[in-house]
């Protein structure tokens, strides 16, 4: 009889515990959806001059929809291909800026210096600047901002 009780209890525990655990850990499997954001006409960008674009994107945050202000450094070598950098330094996330006289990105926090194509010139950052996915649709530049950039890019 004690074994029967143990079996029944185990079944109850499996139903409640299983579904409860699934519920609890479900954020680990949530898809992160990123929306493409329109940054404007491709004609606005001059070759090899990084331009900082501020934009507002509306995003789902669980049950709420929030407006998020964000920005990206956009670089184009030829007006056809585009690179969009995450505006946060890969070291500790400080907002870096473009220095036109040195033709370098300078980070104000720990004196990191990045090349125009995002490579680390000097300083502590562990990797080049993070990039957002970009695409050109009908003459307009779209980016998909994701925090931390596209890891593979």
């Amino acid at each position, binding site marked *: 009889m004690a074994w029967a009780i143990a079996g029944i209890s185990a079944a109850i525990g499996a139903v*409640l515990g299983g*579904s*409860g655990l*699934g*519920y*609890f*850990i*479900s954020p680990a*499997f*949530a898809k992160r959806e990123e929306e493409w954001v329109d940054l404007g006409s491709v004609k606005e960008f001059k070759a090899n001059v990084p331009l900082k674009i501020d934009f507002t994107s509306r995003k789902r945050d*669980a*049950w*709420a929809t929030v407006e998020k202000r964000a920005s990206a450094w956009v670089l184009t070598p030829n007006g056809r291909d585009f690179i969009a950098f995450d505006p946060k330094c890969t070291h500790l996330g400080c907002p870096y800026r473009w220095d036109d006289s040195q033709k370098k990105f300078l980070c104000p926090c720990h004196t990191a210096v990045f090349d125009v194509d995002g490579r680390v010139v000097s300083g502590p950052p562990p990797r080049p600047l993070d990039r957002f996915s970009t695409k050109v649709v009908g003459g307009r530049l779209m980016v998909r901002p994701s925090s931390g950039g596209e890891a593979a890019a």
Partner: protein
Amino acid sequence: MISAALAWTFERTGVDKIWEALFARHIPEAKGPVAWLYALGSATLFVFTVQAVTGTLLAMNYVPSPDHAYDSVRFIGSEVYFGRFIRGLHHWGASFMVVLVALHMMRVYFMASYKYPREATWLAGVGLFLLVIGFSFTGYLLPWDQKAYWATMVGANIAGQTPFVGSYVSKILIGGAEMGAATLSRFYALHVLVLPALTGGALVLHLFLVVWHGISEPPKRVEKGS
């Protein structure tokens, strides 16, 4: 080795004594189908546990504000794994609580188990019954859908019928002159903080008294002439 470890644990914690008092205690025999009526109390306790577990999970994704309550409940149903199931358990569990508490109460009422020496057990039970009603009433508003809103409106107006102090009662209940954000957060606090705390206390008292006095035996007819 194992027995030594057990002996050490028993001496330090007294779990063996607790086991003896709770589980090895004897229960007067109840024969036939009547015996199953004695399971109603533990069944209520079980469903209460289900409510506690599912309620805790739901609270992880719920926001008691008119802006977000409805959306967060919908989020639970559509995005969270087992969310629909867990919310379903909690929803139906609420009805089960009411039914089981009522059935348990009927068993005690018709068998007169509330008599000497179990009067205090019965009083704690009546308190628990009121708490279950309180849980149903406050929990009902939380999804902030049409049904929730209007049913609570009717409930608040019923409370407002109290002679002399009615308008104060309904204002205190809904946290203002009109139903809104304050009502929702007030009901949420009652539902997840105040009522569980009170229920915990009353439940411990009730269960302690059940064990202390022993479970009442099935009633027998009084013999004529005795």
